[in-house]
């Protein structure tokens, strides 16, 4: 197996992990539990939360599951899953 490729893949995965942790800790401030008992619905915050969730999901799929090196059908089907799911979530949220 190509070890140098793996090493760089691992470095990319480590960056992905760092990004994921930073986003997660960042989401902490957005949560309704921090609103002092008066959380109000907020489409912008929800949009941001969902966007961050898409980024996190895609990082996990691409870098942890190594889909970025996978054949096209797999890359496209995982992306389609993300797109359909989050579009549905947001549309239902807005209705």
């Amino acid at each position: 197996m190509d070890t140098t490729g793996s090493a760089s893949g691992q470095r990319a995965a480590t960056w992905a992990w760092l990004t994921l942790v930073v986003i997660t800790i960042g989401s902490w401030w957005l949560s309704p539990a921090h609103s002092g008992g008066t959380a109000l619905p907020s489409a912008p915050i929800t949009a941001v939360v969902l966007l961050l969730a898409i980024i996190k999901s895609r990082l996990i799929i691409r870098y942890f599951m190594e889909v970025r090196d996978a054949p096209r059908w797999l890359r496209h089907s995982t992306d389609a899953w993300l797109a359909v799911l989050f579009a549905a979530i947001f549309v239902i949220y807005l209705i």
Partner: protein
Amino acid sequence: MTLTARPEQRRDEHVPGDNDMWVMVLGDMIIFAGYFIVFMIYRSMHAREFLAAQEHLDVNIGVVNTVILLTSSWFVVRAVTAARAGRSAQAIRLVYGGGLGGVLFMALKGYEWVAKIRAGHGNSEMFYSFYYVVTGVHLIHVLIGLIVLGTVVRELRNPGRRRATVVESGAIYWHMVDLLWVIIFALFYVMR
């Protein structure tokens, strides 16, 4: 995003793990998408009630659990790299690290459930009925994931086997557990 792979880093396209595992993972992703969408439908029908219930979720535990699971996934990524490079002993240690993350996650989740039930948030509230079912099903996936990691360790221990596809397949399952949790975290803990 700064993490796009440079073209020369791209190895030959290959399906990580085996196709059987991808049937499992993609199918499970679709099933969970079903849960999420049904959750959203009920949430939009009872938006205020759900938001009020959400405020009682302990986001600290949610964040810590997410970080635990992400870190355990990162261990497993490194385990796959080590296994590919033939460093089986290191790979086994890393898989154990990943498994430890899973155990910690389950323990914290159990604590969170008990705390919520003690605080009177039983499943008579619609939000919490979803919360218990979805996180419960996710917990079963964590448990299955721990069994999968166990088979990966067994594979790596046996010098005659150590097939890359088995290690990769196990890793992909474990990352799916992580992936689903990240979305649960966003929908149950953070969005409003």
